[in-house]
C-alpha cells in the first residue's frame, strides 16, 4: 500500500507466505516484549517520563497520520480533538466527579461529532485551503477555551486533583503511565496497519492521489474521508484525555494551541507520512531531542535549543525528504533488489 510498490507478494507459494507470517509474528512479539521489558530496566523517573512522552506523541502523530498521511489531507487543527478530549474528561471529572474513563468516551463522541462537522464543511477543499480551514477551527475552539472561563478556568488553566486509583485514571507510578501510553501507541499502530490493508486504506490512497479518478471508480470519497477523520479524531481525543490525567493541568494555549497541531504533523512528516511506523520513528527521534536540548541550553541561552532543533529538522528534511521510514525502506529495498538482479539478471531486465 501507500508509497511502496505492493502486490508482488500474493502470488507466491503458500509455503513461503506461511513462513513469512510466522517470521512476522515472531518479530512482533519481540518488539512488544522489548516495549514491556525496557521501561522496567530503565529505573529512573526522568527517563521513564521521556519514554512515556515518546509513546504518547507517537500515538498522536500516528492518529494525525491517518488523515494527513493516508488520506493526504494536511490537517493543522488536530489539537482541537486533543483539547476537546482533555477538557471533556477533565471538566467532567473536576466539576461533576465523573470517572475520566467515562469522560474519555464522552470526549470521543464530542470529537467525532466535531470531526464530522469540520469534515462536511472543509473536506471538499484541497491542499493548503483545507490546512488553513483546520487551523481556523482549532483557533475557534482555543478561543472558546479561553473565554468560557467559568467552565474551563480560562487561561489560568484547569487543575485536576491527584487521587491515585484505577477508576480515577490517576497513577502514582511513572511505569504505569509508560504502559498506558505504550498501549495507546500500539492501538494506533494496530489501527493504522489495519487501515493499510483494508478497503478503506485503498480508497484513501486513491483519493489522496486523485479524487475525481477515485469517484469515477465508484468510491464514495466523502464517506471515506469522513470515516478516516472520525477515526483519527477519536484516537486523538483519547490521547487528550489520557494526557489530562497524566499532566493534571490543562491550559488552552497548550492543549488547544497550534503548536501542538504542528508538533503532531511534524513528527509524522519527519518520520514518514503514510506509513504506520513513520510517526513512531519521528516522535522517538524528536521528543527526547527537544527535551535534551531544552535541558542543556534552557537556562544559559534559552533560544539556542530551538535553533539547534530547527537546524536538525532542516537537515532531516534535506536528506530524507520523504521521511525517515520511507527513505530507509527505499534504501533497504534497493539493496535487496540489486542483489536479486545479480542472481537472476536474465528475467528481470528484459521487460520494457
Amino acid at each position: 500500500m501507500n508509497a511502496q510498490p505492493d502486490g508482488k507478494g500474493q502470488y507466491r507459494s503458500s509455503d513461503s507466505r506461511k513462513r513469512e507470517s510466522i517470521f512476522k509474528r515472531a518479530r512482533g512479539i519481540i518488539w512488544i516484549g522489548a516495549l514491556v521489558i525496557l521501561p522496567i530496566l530503565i529505573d529512573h523517573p526522568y527517563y521513564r517520563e521521556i519514554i512515556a512522552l515518546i509513546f504518547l506523541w507517537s500515538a498522536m502523530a500516528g492518529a494525525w497520520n491517518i488523515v494527513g498521511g493516508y488520506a493526504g489531507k494536511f490537517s493543522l487543527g488536530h489539537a482541537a480533538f486533543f483539547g476537546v478530549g482533555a477538557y471533556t474528561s477533565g471538566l467532567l471529572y473536576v466539576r461533576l466527579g465523573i470517572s475520566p474513563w467515562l469522560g474519555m468516551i464522552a470526549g470521543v463522541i464530542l470529537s467525532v461529532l466535531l470531526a464530522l462537522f469540520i469534515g462536511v464543511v472543509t473536506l471538499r477543499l484541497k491542499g493548503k485551503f483545507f490546512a488553513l480551514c483546520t487551523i481556523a477551527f482549532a483557533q475557534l475552539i482555543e478561543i472558546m477555551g479561553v473565554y468560557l472561563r467559568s467552565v474551563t478556568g480560562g487561561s489560568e488553566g484547569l487543575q485536576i486533583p491527584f487521587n491515585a486509583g484505577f477508576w480515577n485514571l490517576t497513577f502514582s507510578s511513572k511505569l504505569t503511565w509508560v504502559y498506558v501510553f505504550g498501549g495507546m501507541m500500539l492501538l494506533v499502530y494496530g489501527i493504522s496497519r489495519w487501515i493499510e490493508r483494508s478497503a478503506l486504506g485503498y480508497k484513501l490512497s486513491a483519493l489522496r492521489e486523485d479524487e475525481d479518478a477515485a469517484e469515477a471508480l465508484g468510491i464514495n470519497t466523502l464517506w471515506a474521508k469522513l470515516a478516516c477523520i472520525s477515526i483519527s479524531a477519536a484516537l486523538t481525543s483519547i490521547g487528550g484525555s489520557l494526557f489530562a490525567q497524566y499532566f493534571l493541568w490543562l491550559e488552552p494555549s497548550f492543549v488547544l494551541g497550534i503548536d501542538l497541531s504542528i508538533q503532531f504533523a511534524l513528527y509524522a512528516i519527519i518520520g514518514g507520512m503514510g506509513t504506520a511506523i513513520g510517526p513512531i520513528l519521528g516522535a522517538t527521534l524528536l521528543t527526547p531531542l527537544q527535551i535534551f536540548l531544552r535541558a542543556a541550553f534552557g537556562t544559559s541561552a534559552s533560544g539556542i535549543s530551538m535553533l539547534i532543533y530547527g537546524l536538525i529538522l532542516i537537515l532531516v528534511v534535506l536528506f530524507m525528504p520523504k521521511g525517515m521510514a520511507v527513505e530507509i525502506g527505499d534504501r533497504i529495498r534497493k539493496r535487496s533488489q540489486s542483489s536479486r538482479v545479480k542472481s537472476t539478471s536474465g528475467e528481470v531486465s528484459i521487460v520494457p
Partner: protein
Amino acid sequence: MSLETFDLTMRFGGLVAVKNVNLQIHGKELVGLIGPNGAGKTTLFNIITGYYRPTNGRVVFNDRDVTGWKTHRITRLGLCRTFQLTRPFSHLSLLDNVVVGALCHEPKPEKAKEIAYRALQQVGLEMRAGSLAQGMPIGFRKKLELARALATKPKTLLLDEVMGGLNPHEVREMCSTISAIHKAGTGIVLIEHVMSAVMSICQRVVVLHHGEQIATGTPNEIGKDRAVMEAYLGKKYSNGSA
C-alpha cells in the same frame, strides 16, 4: 440494458457545449462517438457520469434516471468512464491502481486483488503488476485506465480517447482488446479520433458538431454523410470530394 439521454443540454455561461443530444445506446452495442475538437464529446461523458449537472435534459441508464447522481453511484450502477488525460494513482503499483476499481463491487482487498489481476491480464499489463504507475509511458497509462474501469465490472463503458497518442502497433492491440471486451458482453461508447479504429470496430457511429448530434449510422453511412464531411473539412472540400 441501455443508456439514453433526452434533450441533454449543457451551457457554460454563453457557450452551449452540448445541445439537445438524444443518445440511445442499446445494451451491448459498440458505438463510436466522433466529432471535431470542441464538439462536446468529453462534456457529454462528464454529464452522463455525473461530473456536471446538465442545464437541461435527462440521463437514463437501465431504466433509472441518473441525472444529477454522484459519480460513484453511477459507477456502482455499472456505468464507468476512463479519462482522456490519464489519471493514474502515481504512487500506487499498477495492481493497486486496479484494485481500487475492483473494490467497487468486492469489499475484500484479497479478492479484489484477484479481480484486478485478471483485469490487468485482459489489457496485457500483468507482467508489470508490481511496478509503480509513476512515469509509465502513455501506452501503458491508457491500458491502465482501461483495466481500472474494467475492474469495476461495468455494464457499459465510456472510453475517452483510449487510443490517443498510441503508435500504430499499440492501436491495433487496443482495438482487439476493446473488441474482446465488447464480445464478452459489455456495451461500449468510444470517443476516438483514430478513424481507422472507429470504422473497423464500431457497429454504429454518432457524430457531434458544436454540441449537436449531426449524424448517426453505420461506419459506412457516416463515411458518406455530407453533413459530417462539412463538419470535418468545411463546405468547400466536402462538395469537391462527394
